[in-house]
Protein backbone atom coordinates (compact mmCIF):
# COMPACT_ATOMS: atom_id res chain seq x y z
CA UNK A 1 0.00 0.00 0.00
CA UNK A 2 1.30 3.43 -0.89
CA UNK A 3 2.21 5.74 1.94
CA UNK A 4 -0.94 7.50 3.08
CA UNK A 5 -0.89 11.22 3.63
CA UNK A 6 -0.80 12.18 7.29
CA UNK A 7 -2.94 14.86 8.75
CA UNK A 8 -1.60 17.73 10.69
CA UNK A 9 -3.31 18.82 13.85
CA UNK A 10 -6.50 20.57 12.93
CA UNK A 11 -7.84 23.10 15.36
CA UNK A 12 -11.03 24.52 13.90
CA UNK A 13 -11.86 28.06 14.98
CA UNK A 14 -14.37 28.40 17.79
CA UNK A 15 -17.91 29.57 17.16
CA UNK A 16 -16.95 33.23 17.57
CA UNK A 17 -14.31 32.88 14.90
CA UNK A 18 -11.23 33.03 17.10
CA UNK A 19 -8.78 30.17 17.25
CA UNK A 20 -8.31 30.46 20.99
CA UNK A 21 -8.72 27.25 22.91
CA UNK A 22 -10.04 27.09 26.40
CA UNK A 23 -7.23 27.17 28.87
CA UNK A 24 -7.17 24.44 31.44
CA UNK A 25 -4.08 25.94 32.99
CA UNK A 26 -6.10 27.57 35.73
CA UNK A 27 -7.24 24.16 36.92
CA UNK A 28 -3.76 22.80 37.20
CA UNK A 29 -3.38 24.21 40.66
CA UNK A 30 -5.78 21.62 41.97
CA UNK A 31 -5.34 18.99 39.28
CA UNK A 32 -1.94 17.36 39.24
CA UNK A 33 -2.36 15.55 35.95
CA UNK A 34 -4.25 15.42 32.71
CA UNK A 35 -6.99 12.94 31.94
CA UNK A 36 -7.40 11.39 28.50
CA UNK A 37 -10.53 9.34 27.89
CA UNK A 38 -10.75 7.01 24.92
CA UNK A 39 -14.27 6.16 23.82
CA UNK A 40 -16.18 5.67 20.63
CA UNK A 41 -19.43 3.85 21.04
CA UNK A 42 -18.63 0.81 18.92
CA UNK A 43 -16.68 -2.23 20.07
CA UNK A 44 -13.67 -3.36 18.10
CA UNK A 45 -12.72 -0.01 16.59
CA UNK A 46 -9.43 0.08 18.47
CA UNK A 47 -10.10 1.99 21.69
CA UNK A 48 -7.82 -0.25 23.76
CA UNK A 49 -5.09 -0.12 21.10
CA UNK A 50 -5.21 3.68 21.12
CA UNK A 51 -5.35 3.91 24.93
CA UNK A 52 -2.49 1.45 25.49
CA UNK A 53 -0.34 3.03 22.78
CA UNK A 54 -0.86 6.56 24.08
CA UNK A 55 0.02 5.34 27.56
CA UNK A 56 3.22 3.64 26.41
CA UNK A 57 4.34 6.55 24.26
CA UNK A 58 3.69 9.19 26.92
CA UNK A 59 5.50 7.03 29.51
CA UNK A 60 8.46 6.65 27.13
CA UNK A 61 8.63 10.42 26.97
CA UNK A 62 9.12 10.52 30.70
CA UNK A 63 5.57 11.26 31.88
CA UNK A 64 4.14 9.33 34.80
CA UNK A 65 1.15 7.56 33.28
CA UNK A 66 -1.57 5.32 34.61
CA UNK A 67 -3.86 3.43 32.28
CA UNK A 68 -7.30 2.83 33.77
CA UNK A 69 -9.53 0.12 32.37
CA UNK A 70 -12.96 1.71 32.71
CA UNK A 71 -14.64 -1.09 30.83
CA UNK A 72 -15.98 -2.31 34.14
CA UNK A 73 -17.86 -5.21 32.63
CA UNK A 74 -15.33 -6.35 30.06
CA UNK A 75 -11.89 -5.43 31.25
CA UNK A 76 -9.04 -6.59 29.04
CA UNK A 77 -6.54 -3.77 28.89
CA UNK A 78 -4.00 -5.99 30.64
CA UNK A 79 -4.17 -8.26 27.57
CA UNK A 80 -3.41 -5.32 25.28
CA UNK A 81 -0.36 -4.67 27.44
CA UNK A 82 0.67 -8.31 27.39
CA UNK A 83 0.51 -8.88 31.13
CA UNK A 84 -1.36 -11.49 33.15
CA UNK A 85 -4.68 -10.60 34.79
CA UNK A 86 -3.65 -8.55 37.83
CA UNK A 87 -4.75 -9.66 41.28
CA UNK A 88 -5.47 -6.11 42.36
CA UNK A 89 -8.29 -4.54 40.39
CA UNK A 90 -10.58 -1.58 40.38
CA UNK A 91 -13.28 -3.60 42.14
CA UNK A 92 -11.20 -3.54 45.32
CA UNK A 93 -11.24 0.22 45.22
CA UNK A 94 -14.90 0.46 44.18
CA UNK A 95 -15.89 -1.84 47.03
CA UNK A 96 -13.86 0.15 49.59
CA UNK A 97 -11.39 -2.63 50.33
CA UNK A 98 -8.61 -0.13 49.78
CA UNK A 99 -8.60 3.56 50.68
CA UNK A 100 -6.75 5.09 47.76
CA UNK A 101 -6.85 4.26 44.07
CA UNK A 102 -3.03 4.26 44.03
CA UNK A 103 -3.20 1.04 46.03
CA UNK A 104 -4.57 -0.86 43.02
CA UNK A 105 -1.91 0.44 40.60
CA UNK A 106 -0.04 -2.52 39.15
CA UNK A 107 3.28 -2.27 37.29
CA UNK A 108 3.24 -3.00 33.56
CA UNK A 109 6.90 -3.73 33.07
CA UNK A 110 7.18 -0.42 31.25
CA UNK A 111 8.95 2.37 33.06
CA UNK A 112 6.59 5.14 34.26
CA UNK A 113 3.49 3.19 33.23
CA UNK A 114 1.02 1.65 35.69
CA UNK A 115 -2.28 -0.06 35.13
CA UNK A 116 -5.52 0.01 37.04
CA UNK A 117 -7.20 -3.11 35.82
CA UNK A 118 -10.95 -3.32 35.48
CA UNK A 119 -12.99 -5.63 37.64
CA UNK A 120 -12.48 -9.22 36.61
CA UNK A 121 -14.36 -11.12 39.22
CA UNK A 122 -17.10 -9.13 40.90
CA UNK A 123 -20.00 -8.75 38.54
CA UNK A 124 -21.55 -6.08 40.73
CA UNK A 125 -18.57 -3.81 40.11
CA UNK A 126 -19.66 -3.57 36.47
CA UNK A 127 -22.35 -1.13 37.49
CA UNK A 128 -21.11 0.88 40.48
CA UNK A 129 -23.57 2.95 42.45
CA UNK A 130 -23.62 6.70 42.01
CA UNK A 131 -21.63 7.17 45.21
CA UNK A 132 -19.01 4.62 44.16
CA UNK A 133 -18.68 6.26 40.78
CA UNK A 134 -18.29 9.74 42.23
CA UNK A 135 -15.59 8.51 44.60
CA UNK A 136 -13.79 6.91 41.66
CA UNK A 137 -14.04 10.14 39.68
CA UNK A 138 -12.66 12.17 42.62
CA UNK A 139 -9.70 9.86 42.92
CA UNK A 140 -9.07 9.84 39.17
CA UNK A 141 -8.98 13.61 39.24
CA UNK A 142 -6.51 13.84 42.07
CA UNK A 143 -4.04 11.07 41.24
CA UNK A 144 -0.34 11.90 41.49
CA UNK A 145 0.37 11.24 37.83
CA UNK A 146 1.01 13.31 34.74
CA UNK A 147 -1.54 11.41 32.66
CA UNK A 148 -4.48 9.16 33.46
CA UNK A 149 -5.70 7.39 30.35
CA UNK A 150 -9.18 5.92 30.61
CA UNK A 151 -10.06 3.08 28.27
CA UNK A 152 -13.85 3.15 28.02
CA UNK A 153 -16.41 0.47 27.29
CA UNK A 154 -18.41 0.37 24.08
CA UNK A 155 -21.92 1.76 24.13
CA UNK A 156 -23.49 4.90 25.56
CA UNK A 157 -24.11 3.75 29.11
CA UNK A 158 -24.27 6.63 31.58
CA UNK A 159 -21.11 5.64 33.45
CA UNK A 160 -19.20 5.44 30.18
CA UNK A 161 -20.39 8.89 29.19
CA UNK A 162 -19.42 10.30 32.59
CA UNK A 163 -15.88 8.94 32.34
CA UNK A 164 -15.64 10.34 28.82
CA UNK A 165 -16.84 13.77 29.92
CA UNK A 166 -14.55 14.23 32.88
CA UNK A 167 -11.43 14.13 30.70
CA UNK A 168 -9.31 17.00 29.45
CA UNK A 169 -8.89 15.12 26.16
CA UNK A 170 -12.03 13.37 25.02
CA UNK A 171 -10.71 11.02 22.37
CA UNK A 172 -13.28 9.47 20.07
CA UNK A 173 -12.11 6.47 18.05
CA UNK A 174 -13.92 5.46 14.90
CA UNK A 175 -13.22 3.30 11.89
CA UNK A 176 -14.08 4.10 8.26
CA UNK A 177 -17.23 2.00 8.16
CA UNK A 178 -20.87 2.96 8.46
CA UNK A 179 -21.62 1.18 11.73
CA UNK A 180 -18.63 2.77 13.49
CA UNK A 181 -19.51 6.24 12.21
CA UNK A 182 -23.12 5.75 13.25
CA UNK A 183 -22.11 4.72 16.77
CA UNK A 184 -19.65 7.60 17.01
CA UNK A 185 -22.37 10.12 16.10
CA UNK A 186 -24.71 8.52 18.60
CA UNK A 187 -22.02 8.57 21.27
CA UNK A 188 -21.28 12.28 20.76
CA UNK A 189 -24.97 13.17 20.85
CA UNK A 190 -25.49 11.18 24.05
CA UNK A 191 -22.38 12.66 25.68
CA UNK A 192 -23.29 16.19 24.67
CA UNK A 193 -26.78 15.89 26.10
CA UNK A 194 -25.51 14.32 29.29
CA UNK A 195 -23.05 17.17 29.74
CA UNK A 196 -25.67 19.78 28.94
CA UNK A 197 -28.18 18.20 31.26
CA UNK A 198 -25.69 18.08 34.13
CA UNK A 199 -24.69 21.70 33.57
CA UNK A 200 -28.33 22.78 33.22
CA UNK A 201 -29.46 21.14 36.41
CA UNK A 202 -26.80 23.15 38.24
CA UNK A 203 -28.57 26.28 37.02
CA UNK A 204 -32.06 24.85 37.55
CA UNK A 205 -32.79 24.86 33.84
CA UNK A 206 -33.32 21.17 33.24
CA UNK A 207 -37.01 21.70 32.44
CA UNK A 208 -36.06 24.02 29.59
CA UNK A 209 -33.89 21.32 28.10
CA UNK A 210 -36.79 18.91 27.92
CA UNK A 211 -38.79 21.47 26.04
CA UNK A 212 -35.91 21.89 23.61
CA UNK A 213 -35.61 18.17 23.01
CA UNK A 214 -38.36 18.26 20.40
CA UNK A 215 -39.61 14.74 20.79
CA UNK A 216 -36.20 13.10 21.12
CA UNK A 217 -34.64 14.71 18.07
CA UNK A 218 -31.11 15.97 18.62
CA UNK A 219 -31.15 19.70 18.07
CA UNK A 220 -28.17 21.91 17.67
CA UNK A 221 -26.51 23.25 20.78
CA UNK A 222 -26.60 26.85 19.61
CA UNK A 223 -30.35 26.62 19.21
CA UNK A 224 -30.76 25.10 22.67
CA UNK A 225 -28.35 27.50 24.35
CA UNK A 226 -30.12 30.45 22.73
CA UNK A 227 -33.44 29.24 24.10
CA UNK A 228 -31.97 28.92 27.58
CA UNK A 229 -30.23 32.27 27.38
CA UNK A 230 -33.57 33.79 26.39
CA UNK A 231 -35.08 32.47 29.61
CA UNK A 232 -32.17 33.34 31.89
CA UNK A 233 -29.33 35.36 30.43
CA UNK A 234 -26.73 34.84 33.14
CA UNK A 235 -27.38 31.11 33.38
CA UNK A 236 -27.24 30.88 29.60
CA UNK A 237 -23.88 32.65 29.54
CA UNK A 238 -22.42 30.33 32.16
CA UNK A 239 -23.83 27.31 30.38
CA UNK A 240 -22.18 28.46 27.15
CA UNK A 241 -18.81 28.67 28.91
CA UNK A 242 -19.28 25.19 30.31
CA UNK A 243 -20.23 23.71 26.98
CA UNK A 244 -17.30 25.28 25.13
CA UNK A 245 -15.15 22.65 26.87
CA UNK A 246 -17.09 19.88 25.13
CA UNK A 247 -14.68 19.30 22.31
CA UNK A 248 -14.03 15.70 21.30
CA UNK A 249 -10.81 14.77 19.50
CA UNK A 250 -11.18 12.31 16.64
CA UNK A 251 -8.94 9.36 15.82
CA UNK A 252 -9.77 7.37 12.71
CA UNK A 253 -8.39 3.86 13.01
CA UNK A 254 -7.82 1.26 10.29
CA UNK A 255 -7.51 3.74 7.41
CA UNK A 256 -6.70 2.18 4.06
CA UNK A 257 -7.24 4.97 1.53
CA UNK A 258 -6.67 8.74 1.38
CA UNK A 259 -10.47 9.11 1.66
CA UNK A 260 -10.37 7.17 4.94
CA UNK A 261 -7.70 9.56 6.23
CA UNK A 262 -10.01 12.48 5.45
CA UNK A 263 -12.93 10.94 7.33
CA UNK A 264 -12.00 12.69 10.57
CA UNK A 265 -12.05 16.05 8.84
CA UNK A 266 -15.42 15.21 7.30
CA UNK A 267 -16.96 14.19 10.62
CA UNK A 268 -15.61 17.32 12.32
CA UNK A 269 -16.89 19.51 9.48
CA UNK A 270 -20.34 17.90 9.57
CA UNK A 271 -20.66 18.52 13.31
CA UNK A 272 -19.42 22.08 13.09
CA UNK A 273 -21.59 22.96 10.11
CA UNK A 274 -24.76 21.35 11.27
CA UNK A 275 -24.65 21.51 15.06
CA UNK A 276 -22.01 24.14 15.80
CA UNK A 277 -19.93 21.69 17.85
CA UNK A 278 -16.17 21.90 17.36
CA UNK A 279 -13.94 18.84 17.30
CA UNK A 280 -10.22 18.39 16.92
CA UNK A 281 -8.85 15.87 14.46
CA UNK A 282 -6.04 14.14 16.32
CA UNK A 283 -5.00 11.86 13.49
CA UNK A 284 -5.49 8.62 11.63
CA UNK A 285 -4.02 5.17 12.26
CA UNK A 286 -3.22 3.09 9.22
CA UNK A 287 -4.65 -0.36 8.75
CA UNK A 288 -1.69 -2.58 9.41
CA UNK A 289 -1.29 -6.36 9.73
CA UNK A 290 1.37 -5.69 12.34
CA UNK A 291 -1.46 -4.73 14.74
CA UNK A 292 -2.88 -8.23 14.80
CA UNK A 293 0.57 -9.79 14.65
CA UNK A 294 1.45 -7.94 17.84
CA UNK A 295 -1.90 -8.91 19.37
CA UNK A 296 -1.25 -12.57 18.54
CA UNK A 297 2.13 -12.31 20.19
CA UNK A 298 0.35 -10.74 23.20
CA UNK A 299 2.70 -7.80 23.11
CA UNK A 300 1.88 -4.11 22.83
CA UNK A 301 2.21 -2.82 19.27
CA UNK A 302 4.53 0.02 20.26
CA UNK A 303 7.01 -2.42 21.80
CA UNK A 304 6.62 -5.40 19.46
CA UNK A 305 6.39 -3.51 16.16
CA UNK A 306 7.57 -0.03 16.93
CA UNK A 307 8.50 0.75 13.32
CA UNK A 308 5.16 -0.34 11.87
CA UNK A 309 3.04 2.26 10.12
CA UNK A 310 0.29 1.96 12.72
CA UNK A 311 2.76 2.45 15.57
CA UNK A 312 4.19 5.56 13.94
CA UNK A 313 0.67 6.98 13.50
CA UNK A 314 -0.08 6.39 17.18
CA UNK A 315 3.16 8.08 18.24
CA UNK A 316 2.13 11.12 16.21
CA UNK A 317 -1.23 11.20 17.99
CA UNK A 318 0.59 11.30 21.34
CA UNK A 319 2.54 14.29 20.03
CA UNK A 320 -0.69 16.01 19.04
CA UNK A 321 -2.05 15.56 22.56
CA UNK A 322 1.10 17.11 23.98
CA UNK A 323 0.76 19.94 21.48
CA UNK A 324 -2.83 20.59 22.55
CA UNK A 325 -1.73 20.68 26.20
CA UNK A 326 0.98 23.16 25.37
CA UNK A 327 -1.59 25.32 23.59
CA UNK A 328 -3.94 25.17 26.57
CA UNK A 329 -1.06 26.09 28.89
CA UNK A 330 -0.20 29.17 26.89
CA UNK A 331 -3.87 30.03 26.50
CA UNK A 332 -4.18 29.79 22.79
Amino acid at each position, binding site marked *: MAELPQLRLVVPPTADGSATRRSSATRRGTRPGRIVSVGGGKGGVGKSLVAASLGIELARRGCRVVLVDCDLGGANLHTSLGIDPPRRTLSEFVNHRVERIEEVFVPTGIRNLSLVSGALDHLDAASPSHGQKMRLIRHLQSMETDFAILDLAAGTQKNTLDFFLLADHKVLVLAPEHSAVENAH*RFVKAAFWRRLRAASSIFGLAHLLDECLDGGRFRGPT*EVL*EAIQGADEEAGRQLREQMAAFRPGLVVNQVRTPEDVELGL*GVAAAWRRHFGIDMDVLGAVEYDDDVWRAARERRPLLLARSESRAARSLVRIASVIRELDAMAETGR
Partner: protein
Amino acid sequence: MKSLSERSFYEILEVPRSATPEEVQRAYERARALFGPGSLASYSLLAPDEAEVLHLRIEEARSVLLDPQARVAYDERLPAEGEWKGRPAAPFQPAKTPVAPGAQFLGTPWPAIPGADFHPPEGTPWTGDLIRQAREARGLSILQVSERTKVQRSHIANVEAERFDQLPPAVYLRGIVLSIACALRLDDQRVARSYMERAAGARAPAKGR
Protein backbone atom coordinates in the same frame (compact mmCIF):
# COMPACT_ATOMS: atom_id res chain seq x y z
CA MET B 1 -27.35 26.65 15.12
CA LYS B 2 -30.27 28.04 13.17
CA SER B 3 -32.82 25.64 11.81
CA LEU B 4 -32.37 24.78 8.16
CA SER B 5 -35.10 27.02 6.85
CA GLU B 6 -33.59 29.99 8.69
CA ARG B 7 -30.12 29.63 7.27
CA SER B 8 -29.38 31.73 4.21
CA PHE B 9 -28.03 30.10 1.08
CA TYR B 10 -24.64 31.60 1.92
CA GLU B 11 -24.74 30.00 5.33
CA ILE B 12 -25.84 26.67 3.88
CA LEU B 13 -22.83 26.62 1.55
CA GLU B 14 -20.53 28.44 4.02
CA VAL B 15 -19.44 31.09 1.55
CA PRO B 16 -19.23 34.85 2.08
CA ARG B 17 -21.73 37.12 0.35
CA SER B 18 -18.94 38.18 -1.98
CA ALA B 19 -18.18 34.62 -3.16
CA THR B 20 -17.46 34.22 -6.87
CA PRO B 21 -19.40 31.65 -8.92
CA GLU B 22 -16.32 29.40 -8.84
CA GLU B 23 -16.23 29.61 -5.05
CA VAL B 24 -19.95 28.86 -4.88
CA GLN B 25 -19.49 25.83 -7.13
CA ARG B 26 -16.61 24.52 -5.04
CA ALA B 27 -18.55 25.11 -1.82
CA TYR B 28 -21.53 23.30 -3.32
CA GLU B 29 -19.36 20.32 -4.18
CA ARG B 30 -17.94 20.28 -0.65
CA ALA B 31 -21.42 20.47 0.88
CA ARG B 32 -22.68 17.70 -1.37
CA ALA B 33 -19.72 15.50 -0.55
CA LEU B 34 -20.28 16.10 3.15
CA PHE B 35 -24.06 15.87 3.39
CA GLY B 36 -25.08 14.23 0.13
CA PRO B 37 -26.34 10.68 -0.17
CA GLY B 38 -23.52 8.20 0.27
CA SER B 39 -21.42 10.41 2.55
CA LEU B 40 -19.77 8.29 5.22
CA ALA B 41 -18.82 11.24 7.44
CA SER B 42 -22.41 12.39 7.98
CA TYR B 43 -23.97 8.93 7.86
CA SER B 44 -26.88 8.80 10.34
CA LEU B 45 -25.97 12.24 11.73
CA LEU B 46 -29.30 13.73 10.65
CA ALA B 47 -32.80 12.33 10.81
CA PRO B 48 -33.92 11.16 7.32
CA ASP B 49 -36.42 13.99 6.88
CA GLU B 50 -33.90 16.58 8.01
CA ALA B 51 -31.27 15.17 5.66
CA GLU B 52 -33.73 15.40 2.80
CA VAL B 53 -34.48 19.04 3.54
CA LEU B 54 -30.75 19.78 3.77
CA HIS B 55 -30.13 18.17 0.34
CA LEU B 56 -32.88 20.31 -1.14
CA ARG B 57 -31.50 23.47 0.43
CA ILE B 58 -28.00 22.72 -0.86
CA GLU B 59 -29.35 22.21 -4.39
CA GLU B 60 -31.41 25.38 -4.19
CA ALA B 61 -28.52 27.37 -2.80
CA ARG B 62 -26.44 26.38 -5.80
CA SER B 63 -29.13 27.08 -8.37
CA VAL B 64 -29.89 30.51 -6.91
CA LEU B 65 -26.34 31.66 -6.21
CA LEU B 66 -25.08 30.57 -9.63
CA ASP B 67 -27.86 32.40 -11.47
CA PRO B 68 -26.76 36.06 -11.54
CA GLN B 69 -30.28 37.44 -11.87
CA ALA B 70 -31.70 35.18 -9.21
CA ARG B 71 -28.83 35.97 -6.89
CA VAL B 72 -29.37 39.73 -7.15
CA ALA B 73 -33.04 39.31 -6.29
CA TYR B 74 -32.16 37.01 -3.41
CA ASP B 75 -29.52 39.39 -2.03
CA GLU B 76 -31.99 42.26 -2.08
CA ARG B 77 -34.26 40.43 0.28
CA LEU B 78 -31.56 39.23 2.67
CA PRO B 79 -30.98 41.45 5.68
CA ALA B 80 -27.56 43.04 5.96
CA GLU B 81 -24.89 40.52 6.90
CA GLY B 82 -24.53 41.80 10.45
CA GLU B 83 -28.26 41.67 11.04
CA TRP B 84 -28.58 38.20 9.68
CA LYS B 85 -25.86 36.74 11.84
CA GLY B 86 -27.10 35.87 15.29
CA ARG B 87 -30.58 37.09 14.57
CA PRO B 88 -32.94 35.21 16.86
CA ALA B 89 -34.96 32.54 15.18
CA ALA B 90 -38.04 34.13 13.69
CA PRO B 91 -40.84 31.66 13.08
CA PHE B 92 -43.00 32.06 10.01
CA GLN B 93 -41.35 34.88 8.15
CA PRO B 94 -42.60 34.82 4.61
CA ALA B 95 -40.91 36.83 1.90
CA LYS B 96 -40.89 40.54 2.69
CA THR B 97 -40.50 41.82 -0.86
CA PRO B 98 -42.70 39.94 -3.25
CA VAL B 99 -41.40 40.22 -6.78
CA ALA B 100 -41.76 38.52 -10.11
CA PRO B 101 -45.07 36.76 -9.81
CA GLY B 102 -45.23 33.61 -11.85
CA ALA B 103 -41.50 33.07 -11.60
CA GLN B 104 -40.37 29.65 -12.70
CA PHE B 105 -39.07 27.41 -10.02
CA LEU B 106 -35.71 25.77 -10.32
CA GLY B 107 -33.04 28.35 -10.80
CA THR B 108 -35.32 31.05 -9.47
CA PRO B 109 -34.65 32.69 -6.16
CA TRP B 110 -36.79 32.20 -3.13
CA PRO B 111 -37.20 35.94 -2.69
CA ALA B 112 -39.03 36.01 -6.00
CA ILE B 113 -41.88 34.05 -4.47
CA PRO B 114 -44.98 36.19 -4.21
CA GLY B 115 -47.54 35.85 -1.48
CA ALA B 116 -45.83 37.78 1.30
CA ASP B 117 -49.21 38.79 2.63
CA PHE B 118 -50.09 35.22 3.49
CA HIS B 119 -50.17 35.36 7.28
CA PRO B 120 -52.45 32.87 8.97
CA PRO B 121 -53.23 33.98 12.53
CA GLU B 122 -50.85 32.69 15.21
CA GLY B 123 -51.85 29.23 16.37
CA THR B 124 -53.95 28.39 13.32
CA PRO B 125 -53.64 24.64 12.74
CA TRP B 126 -51.84 23.80 9.50
CA THR B 127 -54.51 21.93 7.63
CA GLY B 128 -54.09 20.62 4.10
CA ASP B 129 -56.29 23.45 2.95
CA LEU B 130 -54.10 26.06 4.60
CA ILE B 131 -51.03 24.58 2.92
CA ARG B 132 -52.88 24.81 -0.40
CA GLN B 133 -53.73 28.45 0.34
CA ALA B 134 -50.08 29.18 1.12
CA ARG B 135 -49.04 27.54 -2.14
CA GLU B 136 -51.58 29.46 -4.18
CA ALA B 137 -50.71 32.72 -2.46
CA ARG B 138 -47.21 32.19 -3.75
CA GLY B 139 -48.50 31.59 -7.25
CA LEU B 140 -47.24 28.03 -7.47
CA SER B 141 -48.76 24.99 -9.05
CA ILE B 142 -48.51 21.53 -7.53
CA LEU B 143 -46.22 20.64 -10.42
CA GLN B 144 -43.85 23.48 -9.57
CA VAL B 145 -43.71 22.47 -5.91
CA SER B 146 -43.14 18.89 -7.00
CA GLU B 147 -40.23 19.88 -9.27
CA ARG B 148 -38.69 21.85 -6.48
CA THR B 149 -39.13 19.32 -3.68
CA LYS B 150 -38.84 16.11 -5.73
CA VAL B 151 -42.00 15.03 -3.91
CA GLN B 152 -44.52 13.23 -6.13
CA ARG B 153 -47.42 15.37 -7.32
CA SER B 154 -49.95 12.86 -6.00
CA HIS B 155 -48.44 13.15 -2.51
CA ILE B 156 -48.70 16.94 -2.57
CA ALA B 157 -52.31 16.74 -3.75
CA ASN B 158 -53.09 14.16 -1.06
CA VAL B 159 -51.44 16.29 1.62
CA GLU B 160 -53.58 19.25 0.62
CA ALA B 161 -56.75 17.18 0.41
CA GLU B 162 -55.86 15.39 3.66
CA ARG B 163 -56.31 11.97 2.07
CA PHE B 164 -54.32 10.42 4.89
CA ASP B 165 -55.14 6.85 3.90
CA GLN B 166 -53.38 7.38 0.57
CA LEU B 167 -50.28 8.94 2.10
CA PRO B 168 -47.17 7.04 3.22
CA PRO B 169 -46.48 6.22 6.90
CA ALA B 170 -45.87 9.03 9.37
CA VAL B 171 -42.08 9.00 9.26
CA TYR B 172 -42.11 9.60 5.48
CA LEU B 173 -45.11 11.88 5.58
CA ARG B 174 -43.32 14.18 8.00
CA GLY B 175 -40.42 14.50 5.54
CA ILE B 176 -42.84 15.29 2.73
CA VAL B 177 -44.61 18.00 4.74
CA LEU B 178 -41.27 19.47 5.84
CA SER B 179 -40.14 19.67 2.21
CA ILE B 180 -43.36 21.29 1.03
CA ALA B 181 -43.33 23.80 3.89
CA CYS B 182 -39.69 24.59 3.25
CA ALA B 183 -40.41 25.19 -0.44
CA LEU B 184 -43.25 27.54 0.51
CA ARG B 185 -40.96 29.44 2.90
CA LEU B 186 -43.09 28.48 5.88
CA ASP B 187 -41.76 27.58 9.30
CA ASP B 188 -41.23 23.96 8.31
CA GLN B 189 -40.98 22.53 11.82
CA ARG B 190 -44.16 24.21 12.99
CA VAL B 191 -46.14 23.26 9.90
CA ALA B 192 -44.97 19.64 10.13
CA ARG B 193 -45.77 19.39 13.82
CA SER B 194 -49.24 20.83 13.36
CA TYR B 195 -50.01 18.78 10.27
CA MET B 196 -48.72 15.53 11.78
CA GLU B 197 -50.96 16.02 14.79
CA ARG B 198 -53.94 16.20 12.45
CA ALA B 199 -52.75 13.19 10.52
CA ALA B 200 -52.27 11.16 13.69
CA GLY B 201 -55.74 12.15 14.90
CA ALA B 202 -57.34 11.17 11.61
CA ARG B 203 -55.42 7.93 11.27
CA ALA B 204 -55.87 6.67 14.84
CA PRO B 205 -59.53 5.53 14.51
CA ALA B 206 -58.81 3.93 11.17
CA LYS B 207 -56.17 1.75 12.81
CA GLY B 208 -58.59 0.91 15.56
CA ARG B 209 -56.42 2.45 18.26
